[in-house]
């Protein structure tokens, strides 16, 4: 069990990895990646019961599915830092002949990834399938998933939300990155999400809210989520985050959804993020 300070140190390094990876190839999605750095750090270093080396089958361990695949920088950094592959491989992000594709894929056999994502709205269905397989196999472990809030505009998400409640998929914990931003602007301007908590409740889910950029809140929130599991309802965690969290000039704006910092901006960003574990 990692301490809050240890987790914060890891998250700081993960944020450095994110901005360096995106800067190196001048492409990628830093905003959502930075916002979810605390969540994925807490998940992989404090919550998930995982087995290494990686096996696709995933029997006897907790599983995580990233549905909003564009935040691949944070996913790759956390997977590497958690021991799935060498951190030096982060330098290959988005380059030719790399296992670290722009959006995550199983096709290049990167350890830690069990499904391709990028085309939005598909990951919740996949997570439900994996959770149902666990039930069929008598496997008591959990399935976690992460989704963007803008991603909830995809219709398939609501097909899946309906299915999970109907079939009582209560070993599933789906977290929504509730940062209120998407490429074209604030979600409330692009396509209002309405009252998300009431919507998930109306579909029959157990719903909780969590501060996603407060490490203590994330750690305790994930514990609360797993305690709520196994009671006949899938669990939805509405996680409030700030897009671009941790780099002051990127925070809170959709402008940094999918653009890379220049050299000066990289320098400014890295000055705000302590190198705790050593850069890749």
């Amino acid at each position: 069990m990692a301490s809050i300070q240890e987790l914060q140190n890891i998250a700081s390094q993960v944020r450095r990895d994110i901005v360096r990876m995106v800067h190196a190839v001048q492409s990628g999605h830093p905003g959502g990646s930075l916002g979810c750095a605390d969540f994925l750090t807490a998940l992989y270093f404090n919550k998930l019961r995982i087995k290494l080396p990686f096996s696709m089958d995933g029997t006897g361990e907790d599983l995580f599915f990233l549905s909003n695949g564009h935040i691949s920088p944070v996913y790759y950094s956390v997977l590497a830092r958690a021991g799935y592959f060498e951190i030096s491989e982060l330098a290959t992000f988005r380059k030719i002949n790399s296992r670290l594709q722009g959006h995550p894929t199983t096709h290049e056999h990167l350890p830690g990834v069990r499904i391709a994502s990028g085309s939005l709205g598909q990951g919740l269905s996949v997570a439900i399938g994996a959770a149902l397989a666990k039930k069929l196999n008598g496997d008591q472990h959990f399935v976690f998933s992460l989704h963007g809030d803008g991603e909830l505009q995809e219709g398939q998400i609501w097909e899946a939300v309906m299915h999970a409640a109907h079939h009582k998929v209560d070993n599933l914990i789906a977290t929504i990155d509730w940062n209120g931003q998407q490429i074209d602007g604030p979600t409330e301007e692009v396509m209002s999400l309405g009252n998300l908590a009431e919507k998930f409740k109306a579909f029959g889910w157990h719903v909780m809210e969590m501060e996603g950029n407060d490490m203590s809140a994330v750690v305790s929130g994930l514990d609360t989520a797993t305690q709520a599991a196994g009671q006949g309802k899938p669990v939805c965690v509405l996680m409030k985050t700030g897009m671009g969290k941790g780099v002051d000039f990127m925070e809170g704006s959709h402008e940094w959804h999918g653009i890379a910092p220049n050299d000066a901006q990289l320098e400014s960003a890295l000055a705000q993020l302590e190198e705790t574990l050593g850069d890749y």
Partner: protein
Amino acid sequence: MKCADITLLNEKETRAGFGEGVFEAGQENPNVVVLTADLAGSLKLGPFIKAFPERFIQCGIAEANMMGIAAGLTIGGKIPYTTTFANFSTGRVYDQIRQSIAYSDKNVKICASHAGLTLGEDGATHQILEDIGLMKMLPGMTVIVPCDFNQTKAATKAIASYEGPVYLRFGRPKWANFTKEDGSDFQIGKAQKLSDGKDVSIFACGHLVWKAVEAGKILEEKGYSVELINIHTIKPLDKDAVIASIQKTGCAVTAEEHNILGGLGDSIAQVAATNHPIPIEYIGTKDTFGESGKPVDLLKKYGLDTPDIVAAAEKAIARKKG
């Protein structure tokens, strides 16, 4: 081996062959799981559901979600069979299949009934004629179009132990059933030669294989020597069998219940063009949608009937000589 020697056993729906096959696959393999999008009855899932209720997942009318759930079930070792009509198995869910199944290398069996014009009265909204093309274009996807009840049953069982994503296409109406009852004449990826001949090769799949048998009998009566090959596996294509046949006959007819753009005919033509160019005539829908009507009337109207295959063969033979 002549078309004249091929005898009809009975008439049965290919989808009923699927229903029997998936029940037996479930008996043989405890990892077989069946999903449907509110079409359990149409896909003849009754025996499977009764025997293995815990391995049946009703998804409601939500095909995109069904495809994703199937992909997820493979993580944990399940062998999911998704079941709905061919249109909703492909066109409606193309991106889900592309990303979550094909690109993700998932061992999902996409089982599609009511394909093609022979769906009949429901009309063009349901008569998909583009699905073979859509599926064969996906890297890593195996595409199987069995010709009758017995073969559909055999294919349904065979795909359980065949690793990788599969598209299995079959149909709605009662149709001529003539392949071996035990399915021993079916092997994934291996073309099935139904008659030996030297004047023309006929490559057919699905319901049109029996139409090609009927055409072959007529052509034989006219004095032609016909080589009829059932291409039940369109991808991976048995190229060796295709090349060997066209080298011998020098011309070909392709026959499918599908648009001639992107289907079996295109696959055969590509093998011919790159290995042994020959005249080819295509039987299939000509870049058009279907319409409501009786299956036999639709096949006639759209040029997919027995006399059309006969005429196409004679034209191919004439082009070869010309």
